[in-house]
């Protein structure tokens, strides 16, 4: 039964990698700084979801459980069954911190965009590039 899940899983991970590629295109080729920020957010999200899919597992029968004990275990055998069916918790903890740090960094980037707009009157990256060329020629 789990072969279907494995086939779907390959397709889904390929889709995440494609999403990463599309977002990277946005970071490199769109002129607006806000659009670059949006693309960066999509890029980090795709990386995070690939990290989560590394920690996934399949079982011979049934579907795996989240890494949270449903109730207080009463015997060691109950705990051992939980270990046998649960997915990897470590990657979830790492991704949780990565999401919060990513949001903090995005807030700071958006603040820099506001400062850029205050200085140049636009959020277009080409304006500052033109000015840089002009200064170099003088």
């Amino acid at each position: 039964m789990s072969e279907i899940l494995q086939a779907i899983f390959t397709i889904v991970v390929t889709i995440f990698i494609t999403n990463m590629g599309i977002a990277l295109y946005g970071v490199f080729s769109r002129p607006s700084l806000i659009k670059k920020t949006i693309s960066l957010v999509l890029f980090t999200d795709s990386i995070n979801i690939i990290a989560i899919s590394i920690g996934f597992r399949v079982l011979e029968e049934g579907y795996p459980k989240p890494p949270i004990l449903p109730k207080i275990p009463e015997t060691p055998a109950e705990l051992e069954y939980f270990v046998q069916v649960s997915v990897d918790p470590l990657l979830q903890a790492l991704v949780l911190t990565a999401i919060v740090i990513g949001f903090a960094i995005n807030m700071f980037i958006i603040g820099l965009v506001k400062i850029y707009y205050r200085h140049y009157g636009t959020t277009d990256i080409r304006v500052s590039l033109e000015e840089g060329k002009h200064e170099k020629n003088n």
Partner: protein
Amino acid sequence: MFLPAIILLIFAFLSIVVTYLAIVERDMLVAAIFMAFQGVCYAIIYYVLMAPDVTLAYIPISSGLTPILILIVLKKTERVER
């Protein structure tokens, strides 16, 4: 076993469509809304991949706070990309 696989496939399909539209769109207000849609798709995929903790952190941040942050900045700066 069938149901999680089908949900996974459908929302991965939607996420690639929405990501492409968010990158290509010139009106950045609409792009922010597409970004929120992508957040919903990824949140459901997180849930299917058995990560409820990450889902709870990801729903408010990606489909609530980041689009609102971008909306506030669009109000203060320019809205359409040239």
